[in-house]
């Protein structure tokens, strides 16, 4: 495998220029109403999808942008579309 990631600024680059930033869990929740469970869900829990998922990456050795891509975690390749959850 050899992951490449398409940075919205720099284009397609070697995956090792990037750092993974987690499954996409949406915006940061408001503090009020967060229970230990819902806090834990946002901070620590993952769906661990074996298949395609939307996730965050930062181009750490490049332009520094944060962005999302869809990636197939079974093949470890970036994919264009989010569908086909296994």
């Amino acid at each position, binding site marked *: *495998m*050899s*992951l490449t990631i398409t940075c919205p600024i720099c284009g397609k680059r070697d*995956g*090792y220029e990037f*750092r*993974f*930033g*987690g*499954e996409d869990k949406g915006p940061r929740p408001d503090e009020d109403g967060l229970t*230990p*469970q819902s*806090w*834990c*869900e946002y901070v*620590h*829990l*993952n*769906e*661990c*999808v*074996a298949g395609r*998922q939307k*996730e*965050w990456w930062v181009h750490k050795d490049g332009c520094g942008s944060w962005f999302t891509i869809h990636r197939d*975690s*079974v*093949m*470890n390749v970036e994919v264009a579309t989010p569908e086909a959850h296994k």
Partner: protein
Amino acid sequence: MFGKYKPLLGEKTQLKSSYDVVIIGGGLHSLATAYFLAKEHGITDVAIIEKNYIGFGGAGRNTAIVRANQRTQYNVPLYKEALDLWPVLTKDLDYNLMFNNCGNLNLMHSEAAMKAARMTIATAQFHGVESHLLDAKEAKELVPALNISEDITFPIHGAMFHPPGGIVRHDAVVWGLAKGASKYGVEIHQQTEATAVNTKNGKIVSVETSRGTINTSKVLISAGGYSASLIYGMLGIKLPISVLTIQAMVTQPLKPLLNHVVSSGAYHCYANQTLKGEIATGAHMDQWPNYTTQTTAHYIKHQAEALSEFLPCLRGLRFMRIWSGLADMTPDMAPILDGNDQIEGFFMNCGWGYFGFKSCTVAGKYMAEFMAKGEAPDMIKPFNLRRYEQHKLMGETAELVTYTPNN
């Protein structure tokens, strides 16, 4: 001397429509749990459901290194017991697990690391586990191939020497446990995929497989790297797990050169010599979730660069084969052993990261007790899932969590 060649796992059987216990995953933890369920608790109506073949996953892809020099008091006794079990199991299973008690040398590359090692060593000694701190010269005397000069990326300051550790032949453990479990009547169904776990009123009722439905009231998912995905997919329970691909490789075989397991956290590298003479070395993880067991060009080069620095004689050797497996990492580098909580009759044993091999027997032993008695034994109580929402990470790693799976 050897007699006729009998099938190791007994004759094939048909899948029944119900079992007392169904275990999803045919790896080491499942086999060990089934073995102890049968042997210690008399629960023999057990089906192991394996999509591929036994030992296909982490069981056959791991470092084969065993040790009990973990960081916290919750972990050390567990791993100590695991170490003590290898000779016992070799005897009980009548299968040579080939425990090579060569000792582990964990290199330290800074004053800060020496301090961390001191704490780990004190913890080990406090729990009656042998471990010692060596300076660089002593480490070199033990492992003459070490480069203790200053002109490398991470100069060696010293090492943690852990004599009780070593290497166990991982395939032998798979086959030995399978043989042992089958002897008691445990059924191992390979090439059989579990597709769903059904619950009713918060209780387990059945498991769907590619070969039909099985009624049961107790299900254990201990499917290594695949556990988190299965548990979420089948039961909707999310876990604080990131599944990463971890790689290892061997060189061509060589006459004895390394007599210990040598490892270095800073270089993300361990090396030891197998009984066959290969230098087995790993283990790097790409820091993003993966279910691929392919390898990367990046890593084999990285490994060569690292070994060139701290074991420079190995530059004259050739890499022969690189492979990979999955490690289900938790934020605190400690596993999740839980059950009868979210769903009655549902148990899970996962999150071992890259410690799944060295822990398999003891985890199986205590999970069997948990499932037989319905309540977690004290030894594994701290490893419950709720610790994360209670802000009680276990501290098995000192490193701070920033983004998953950066832990």
